[in-house]
């Protein structure tokens, strides 16, 4: 909005000479060799057409602009040009800066000498990839399509999936140096007005030179930027995005980014996957529980091992104590150091595997996992049991569908292990209490982050921790404050029959 007002203040540049206009535009682009201009005379009028070579579809310019202008006999002026040219989205511009910005976005500028305005038409040619299979949030089951970097394609997919007249996509421009288009997407009939207002306020307030990507945008607009937990869900799956919007959340799409942002998000939605919806409800519930247990194990196992070996031998059962003592007897390090070394190693393997090309990455896994794992035990660096524990907790952390949350959980393990090594179980439970308080304290778009546990909403347990059969779950989660709570009317024939009827 502010950009508009700035433009109005600049005084009109036109009318001017064609040659002056051409050189000024050249100067505006630092004499770039890519600015092409074509001048011609038609019925005694001097006309110039300017565009940037690789930003426009040239056939369109030749076919629908220059050809049309040259074929006709009439004398052109700005209005007649606007009427006759068969391309939509013509704009009247009167300042050099506006024209320059339009050209950068893939427009063509046409100026007829002596006229008050210059006309720009958007004929952009954007290099973009086709929508492909989702990579970071891969699904076995269900739609495979993922967002791409182009916001046009993404909005196209969203509109296609959310075929509803109340779908709103508000446009924002964010970024002072590199303006980026940001869209606020929601269903007006369902999404809560407060949420929309809050998100709108944050997007308008945001001052930054450039939003690189939607996950960067989330870090600008999050409630608490110092927390380790992500507070807004970033997804590359259109089905996830559209499902959440239909549930009454609001979404943000950022141009040049292959993922959408969902808000408000609660802690448990990071453990959901749309696949839970595609599979049957009992499997879905089981898998959701499994992920939550995995998260718990991932931050519990290694710290407990360290605490037990360092301070509380008495909690280890006798049978386990023998084998544990046997494999620990060769290890020269204190348990804390032992655990940190191994955890660090696992993180190294993961990071190296992620950075390397896929082909080499596989070798990494073998070298890192098997060779080093085997050797490290034989060399007496760590105990066998610790390897099992660390591998298990690393594995558990990868079951979390959200990459950001999985990383948060894995990183959180390190301070926990250190606390366990320093103060045993007291240290561990201190950390748990701290994490719980922190999670209760967090908010996402001013909505409680730990909902539906606190504030407790038992109806919302469905579709966050549990997953009930669809006929039972005909309500949208109250945590999102949807305007329309009911997803559908309850089926009428719910009367239970007797056995033989």
């Amino acid at each position, binding site marked *: 909005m502010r950009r508009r007002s700035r433009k109005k203040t600049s005084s009109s540049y036109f009318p001017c000479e064609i040659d002056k206009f051409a050189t000024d535009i050249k100067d505006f682009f630092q004499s770039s060799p890519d600015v092409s201009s074509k001048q011609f005379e038609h019925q005694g009028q001097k006309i110039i057409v300017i565009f940037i070579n690789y930003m426009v579809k040239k056939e369109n310019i030749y076919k629908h602009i220059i050809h049309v202008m040259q074929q006709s006999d009439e004398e052109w002026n700005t209005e007649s040009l606007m009427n006759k040219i068969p391309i939509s989205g013509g704009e009247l511009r009167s300042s050099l800066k506006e024209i320059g910005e339009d050209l950068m976005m893939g427009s063509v500028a046409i100026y007829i000498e002596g006229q008050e305005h210059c006309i720009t038409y958007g004929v952009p040619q954007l290099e973009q990839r086709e929508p492909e299979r989702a990579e970071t949030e891969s699904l076995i089951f269900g739609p495979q399509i993922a967002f791409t970097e182009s916001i046009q394609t993404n909005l196209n997919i969203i509109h296609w999936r959310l075929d509803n007249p109340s779908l709103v996509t508000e446009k924002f421009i964010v970024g002072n140096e590199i303006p980026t288009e940001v869209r606020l997407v929601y269903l007006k009939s369902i999404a809560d007005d407060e949420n929309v207002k809050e998100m709108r306020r944050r997007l308008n307030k945001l001052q930054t030179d450039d939003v690189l990507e939607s996950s960067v945008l989330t870090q600008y607009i999050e409630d608490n930027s110092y927390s380790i937990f992500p507070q807004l869900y970033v997804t590359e799956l259109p089905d996830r995005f559209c499902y959440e919007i239909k549930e009454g959340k609001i979404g943000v799409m950022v141009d040049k980014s292959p993922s959408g942002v969902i808000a408000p998000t609660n802690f448990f939605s990071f453990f959901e996957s749309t696949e839970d919806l595609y599979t049957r409800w009992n499997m879905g519930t089981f898998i959701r529980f499994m992920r939550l247990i995995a998260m718990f194990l991932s931050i519990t196992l290694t710290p407990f091992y360290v605490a037990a070996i360092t*301070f*509380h031998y*008495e*909690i*280890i*059962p*006798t049978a*386990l104590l023998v084998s544990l003592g046997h494999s620990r007897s060769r290890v020269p390090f204190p348990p804390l150091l032992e655990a940190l070394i191994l955890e660090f190693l696992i993180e190294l393997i993961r990071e190296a595997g992620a950075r390397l090309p896929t082909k080499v990455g596989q070798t990494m896994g073998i070298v890192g996992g098997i060779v080093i794992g085997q050797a490290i035990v034989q060399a007496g660096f760590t105990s066998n049991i610790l390897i099992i524990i660390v591998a298990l907790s690393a594995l558990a952390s990868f079951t979390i569908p959200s990459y950001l949350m999985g990383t948060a959980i894995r990183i959180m393990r390190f301070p926990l292990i250190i606390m366990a090594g320093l*103060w*045993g*179980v*007291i240290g*561990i*439970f*201190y950390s*748990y*209490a*701290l994490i*719980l*308080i*922190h*999670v*209760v*304290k967090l908010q996402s778009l*001013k909505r*409680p982050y*730990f909902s539906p*546990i*606190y*504030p*407790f909403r038992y109806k919302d347990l469905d579709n966050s921790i549990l997953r009930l059969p669809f006929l039972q779950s005909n309500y949208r989660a109250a945590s999102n404050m949807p305007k329309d709570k009911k997803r559908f009317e309850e089926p009428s024939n719910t009367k239970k029959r007797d056995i033989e009827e």
Partner: protein
Amino acid sequence: MKSLSIPKENQIKAWYLFIILHTMQVGVGMAGYPRLVFMEARQDSWIPIIITGLILHLVIACMVFVLNSFEKEDLPGILTKSMGKYVGLVVSSLFVIYFLLLFLSVIANYIEFVQVFIFPQMKSWFIGLLLLTLVWYAVYGGIRVAIGSSFVFFLSSIWMVGLLHKPITQIDSRNYFPMFQVGLDEIYQGVLISSYTFLGFELLWMVYPFINDKKRVGRYSQFAIVFTVAMYLLTTMVAIGYFSPRQLEEKVWPLLTLFKVISFPMFERFDILAVALWILVILPNLILLAWMVSFTCKRVHGWKQKYCLAVMIIFSLLFVSIFDDRELVNKLTDFTGRVGLFLGFGFPFVLLPFAIRQRMKGKKKNAKSS
């Protein structure tokens, strides 16, 4: 003193009272309670517990009556309204000191658990520091976080009750008989000794204005008392049945000792974990008490709540690091219990006449206006 106006997002539903009043009452006292009451009333300990419970129902009913008649006021507001500015200020300050005493006794007792069961060498000030940082962090988030974290801690520690199934299977029922051997005097002593353990319901005084649906306050606070009494009855009866009378007299914290028999395939000795887990049981007490102290200070004196909180935490840290011996902690606990008998159990009845007067006034006003 101004009446409170609470923004909507800070209001809580009445049924949370059920949980938070319960968590306030259950805490450090619980671990040693079976022995204390057993020393007085022997195998008939259930009688004083139930009598205490009945008295509590009466007290809560009285408190709710008083609070309802003053409508949107908390304790300091009621005191100034009914007793005048200066007396109100003095009595409110007394309550602040009393809340602080409760806070200190909880923290000192827990430090002792840790030192006896897990780390004999760990310094008191350090355990105190750990606890107090958590308290500071939670209270700093305001009432929403204080109640929320208490609720979450309740959920994450209540499952420990299920662990009692193991000792229950090993109960010797002869320990309960013969019944009705207890005299009136012992029952009286048993009720007195229970007072400290059951304290904490004073939270209702302060949290009342924050409650969204005030009509249900009475119901849910009474439920909380039922729940607490049931919990104490269960643990005490299990302890009496499980231990022989001689043994029980020797165990300072029978409940924690009970956890010693529990073992899982992965944990041989659960009591270590139980003591560490107990942090989740006492944190709601500490957090809510710290909130009460700092908030009452703010209400009474108009100081900033964060400074009150900071001063209180520093004071508590100094206190636990200087006075860390068993005798003193015991004395402090007893003293707090005795103060609680007056300020907790007795005080609502003192306010009763004022509440009745307030109601009469309200009625008169209504009559006039109509």
